[in-house]
């Protein structure tokens, strides 16, 4: 029983990170109908920038700020320069361009920082808390991870639901031409959407870095986990992305704890296939098309 609780706690922690990556993918998919296969590369790159700050003696918080800021910039530039020309074109073109960006970022990171993974410090101790004399698989750092993701989700929810900017962002994503007719500068909204998504992704990168290490291909699996979580939730649903991330985090934690930690990525593959076969549009997909 303790083991189950512990695995669940560990699952929630990593699920929070998956949820953040999934949310980054969903925000971009909703806005531009592009699955950003470069997301893994983008968060890898911003985490490397944060690592550089820490490595040069900067504080954890400065590094986190650098990662988030660079995420915003990379996301905006990627949309403006690379994705804008292929938006609305054949889906394959968008896939190829984002894959090209992913490969390019990976190569650039390898050139700058080398191919050997580096360790990354956690913000707080990773020693598990104790409850009733039992050591839990939940450390102060894990609590920070969960809290940071929750905070970002809450902030995004407020932004999207409560503010005029959020309304314009949603309108631009749902119906670009109608949004333009209401005076929304759709191009700017799409760029901002990518920037926000990349920011969420870069947060996920810094949070997971202590456990996966920082290297050019260390975050490949994160893209798979994030995509799987997003598909579980339905690529169109931000709330679904969060639930999908937590479900996947727990499922993989059980796989890792009860069977073998080597089966985690394979488990994600199995989960993805199972969901796609049963509900190809995600567990939370309500609509299959939209009427105007």
């Amino acid at each position: 029983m303790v083991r189950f609780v512990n695995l669940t706690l560990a699952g929630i922690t990593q699920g929070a990170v998956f949820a953040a990556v999934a949310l980054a993918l969903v925000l971009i998919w909703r806005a531009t109908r592009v699955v950003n296969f470069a997301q893994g590369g983008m968060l890898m790159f911003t985490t490397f920038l944060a690592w550089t700050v820490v490595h040069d003696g900067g504080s954890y918080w400065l590094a986190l700020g650098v990662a988030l800021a660079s995420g915003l910039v990379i996301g905006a530039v990627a949309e403006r320069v690379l994705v804008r020309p292929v938006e609305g074109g054949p889906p394959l073109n968008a896939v190829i361009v984002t894959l090209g960006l992913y490969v390019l970022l990976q190569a650039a990171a390898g050139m700058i920082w080398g191919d050997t993974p580096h360790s990354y410090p956690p913000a707080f101790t990773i020693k598990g808390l104790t409850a009733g004399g039992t050591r839990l698989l939940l450390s102060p750092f894990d609590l920070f991870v969960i809290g940071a993701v929750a905070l970002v989700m809450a902030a995004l929810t407020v932004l999207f639901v409560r503010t005029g900017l959020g309304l314009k962002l949603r309108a631009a994503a749902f119906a670009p031409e109608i949004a333009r007719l209401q005076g929304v500068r759709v191009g700017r909204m799409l760029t901002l959407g990518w920037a926000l998504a990349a920011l969420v992704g870069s947060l996920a990168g810094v949070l997971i870095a202590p456990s996966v290490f920082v290297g050019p291909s260390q975050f490949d699996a994160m893209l798979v986990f994030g995509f799987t979580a997003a598909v579980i939730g339905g690529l169109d649903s931000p709330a679904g992305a969060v639930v999908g991330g937590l479900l996947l985090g727990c499922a993989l934690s059980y796989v890792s704890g009860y069977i073998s930690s080597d089966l985690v990525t394979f488990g994600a593959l199995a989960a993805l296939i199972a969901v796609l076969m049963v509900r190809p549009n995600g567990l939370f997909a309500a609509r299959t098309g939209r009427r105007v």
Partner: protein
Amino acid sequence: MGAFRLTLVRHLAGAAAGLVALYVLTTSVGPYRDLQIAQAAYLTCAVAGLTVLTGLGGQISLGHGAFMAVGAYTAALVSAHWGWPLAAMLAAAAVVTALAGVLVGAVAARLEGPYLAGATLAFAVGLPGLANYSHLTGLLGGQNGLTVTPPVPPAALGETFPLERWQAWIACAGAVITLFLLANLTGGRFGRTLRAGRDDEIAAALCGLRVARLRIAATVVSAACAGLAGGLLAVVASLAAPGAFPLTLSLQLIAAVIIGGLGTLPGAVWGALILVFVPSWASDAASSSGLSHDVASNLPLAIYGLVLIAVTLAFPRGLQGGLRDIGGAARRRLPPSLRRFAPGGGAPGVPATHRGGADEPTTDQASAPDPDPEGAGGRDDDGGGAGGRGERLRR
């Protein structure tokens, strides 16, 4: 007198010419180049299979590296446990991977666009990790993988015959056979129905095509090619290990397909050559200009990334299509008597596969006067032209 036989004869002639060219090439270079030729040859198999699936079938796969892993491990296992001879080993690699292709294809046939891309990406990342699973390490050798006994060159070739050249011959034979079979397959009914299913799924279904079955068949064919490529890789590298099949391998294969031109078999050869020779050129350039190891080893990746982006933004149909447009425009300005010698008709320096280009039209034109002086060279989007020519003859 079937057009089918004509096409077949032409493809056979192309294959024979390719083998002769490769014989000349492999015997005139050193072991290092032989090894590179072998690599290019097995990559050609995988890229050709992928270009049929993605270019003609319209299904993207980011997971062909995983198919190659299946082929490589199959070859290693049958060789280690049962000591199967080389040909049987490679056939087993292709067949077992084709069976894996049935499973993947059944799933993939139901998926579209980014869902398909994501699922195959998960396949590429998830499958090679199985080798590390503790219950399978006894069988699959874990992180270190399985070693494969290198093939022994036949005694008839002499005792000093280099192993690398023999490996290159094996891989090249595999590539030529793959290209020959794919050229015939895609030039015929299969290729036409595949294109129909890609262009308009509903219309194809209304014409009585079973689109889902067709897609599975395409995946199976494509997987068999990748499996053979994996088997050849195991033979050439004498090893099957998870480290040989990272996500970047799958992405490189798709890069080669895009760079060579979606759906064209000659493009697959180009793409595979680029995958092998760009890294070697990059490391030469890096060592001569004093770049660090980190920069040199990542330069090819950076180039692929840039090229993928540039090609998609500049030539939406792929580099081969772009070159063909340029070649077609140039040939249009030449007098007809010179057209057959103009570039674009055949691919010089590459095994002449089956381009249906301007250098072989005599029999065609005798039986069916061709109203289109461009020939297959000016056609877009149709599997290298051999199929197009064959179809036109049959009418």
